């Protein structure tokens, strides 16, 4: 059974989330405040954390940073709209994904499932995301077993997205991994290569979805 920790200052929200999660077989613990949340995390060792960004006192970002000092537990951010910069900050400080309040239960549970999947480990030289396969050893990609012709940059880009399949990856995270060390502004190049990749993936393969102001998400068809 998975253990979930809810850190949110709204009592009713916690109670509801507890009901939703318990009905899906999660064991739930909760905290109304950041400092308590960190203690709960240390004490209960949850498998996933739901963290509200608008916490009183120790704010969500701060909680996340402290949590990341000793734990790599998957973290889902709960936020309201129009906090793009703070969402990006959370994602770049180790949050795994976010949902925007008000969120649908289905969306919440789907995100939780995705971020709880074992984080990618280099035990195999192959990444599979739906119909998409990436062979890291030979730098080959295939879609529905048909080979995909990709340039090295496109391959690197698709690798980052596929490693995080179903999860949001911020623009900076992509750029850091694909264009590491380059000085010119790669945000333009990123768009160009995304464009090419989309064409090559066609309409049947996984879709690369843009979330304005935040980044990209590879969604399995």
């Amino acid at each position, binding site marked *: 059974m998975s253990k979930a920790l809810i850190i949110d200052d709204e009592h009713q929200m916690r109670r*509801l989330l507890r009901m939703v999660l318990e009905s899906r077989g999660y064991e739930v613990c909760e905290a109304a405040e950041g400092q308590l949340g960190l203690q709960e995390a240390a004490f209960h060792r949850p498998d996933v954390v739901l963290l509200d960004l608008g916490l009183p006192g120790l704010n969500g970002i701060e909680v996340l940073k402290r949590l990341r000092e000793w734990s790599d537990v998957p973290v889902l951010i709960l936020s309201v709209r129009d906090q793009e910069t703070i969402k990006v900050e959370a994602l770049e400080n180790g949050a795994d994904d976010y949902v925007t*309040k*008000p969120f649908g239960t289905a969306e919440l549970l789907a995100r939780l499932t995705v971020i709880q999947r074992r984080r990618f480990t280099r035990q195999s030289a192959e990444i599979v995301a739906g119909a998409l396969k990436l062979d890291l050893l030979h730098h080959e990609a295939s879609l529905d077993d048909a080979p995909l012709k990709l340039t090295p940059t496109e391959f690197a880009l698709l690798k980052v997205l596929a490693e995080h399949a179903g999860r949001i990856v911020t623009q900076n995270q992509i750029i850091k991994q694909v264009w590491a060390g380059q000085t010119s502004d790669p945000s*333009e190049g990123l768009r160009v290569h*995304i464009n090419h990749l989309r064409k090559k993936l066609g309409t049947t393969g996984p879709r690369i*979805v843009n979330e304005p102001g935040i980044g990209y998400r590879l969604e399995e068809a």
Partner: protein
Amino acid sequence: MSAAQRTNVQPSPPPLSLAEVGQYSWGLTLVFVLASTCWVLLPYTGYLFAALVFLLAIVLAGTRWNRGPVLMMAVVSALVWNYFFIPPQFTLHIDKPQDMVMFSLFFIVALSMGHLITRLRAREAALAQHHQEREHLLELKHRAELLSESERLHRTLLDSVSHELKTPIAIIRTALDGLGLENPYAREIETANRRLQRIVESFLEMTRVESEALEPKPDWCEIGDVLHAATAPIQQELAAHALRMTCATELPLLKLDSRLLAQVLGNLLHNATRYAPAGSDIEIHAALVGDNLQLRVRDHGPGLPLGAEDQLFEKFYRTPDSPAGGTGLGLAIARGLMRAMKGDIEAHTHPTGGAEFVLHLPVKTRSAA
């Protein structure tokens, strides 16, 4: 303040100002009066007294008048002193060597007095001006601090109001998901809750647009992504319509704030779903016109009331026959957002029917090939 203003303290001679002409004539008059007085007193005081009186007058004049009149006084009084007072009188000739020295000294002292004093005054004036500028700058700084403080307060307030309003809506949404939407009453609550969410978001967005707390953050994007972001939140409403997007040519990458533009498009599309009959098409046409991205959003509804094409964008304006619900803010927000991005929006009834909204947005482009 500019250097040009500062140099005004020392008036440049041509053209003569009226005040300066007055000073010249007052200077001459003063020299004449003093010379007459000293002339009368000459038997009792001696001619050196007259020199001191003239010097005093020059010093006093220097504290009030400009350089030109003061120097004029220095020259005239030197000549007058020489001509009328230094023996032999009524000639410019000087007999005694000590008188010659005296005259030269007088001349030099009078000139430098006039010069020094006017310079002193110029410096004083510059200092006063400098002081004034500093005061002005300090005041500006103070005002800017106050402004940013009030902006911060405003933002905090907006954030907390936003949080307070959205939390119950989020709770209702989650609770409804738990309840399931099989029950028709639950579906009604769900519809009302979505409407409430729209209203709250409209009010918050309007406040944000009006407070000018909006800072567009342009980045490279594809028009398709903008459209996707615009339609995602209103898919339920759009389900009853066929949405067609066409482009004049394949559009290059565009540098714009895709989040704000998506919101504008979302508002327009949502409007279209409210006014146009179910099943009708909604068309979006994108083109580059010069350095402007032009987007046309057209529905096949009843079109716009004649003469209201501009009023539409006013806050709380609602057309007389608009369906119930809606805040009358959607278009005001759309225009506010477009203008924040240095673009604009206008509306008209399409010649073949239906409302058409035209967006213009200056953009940088880059080929995506």
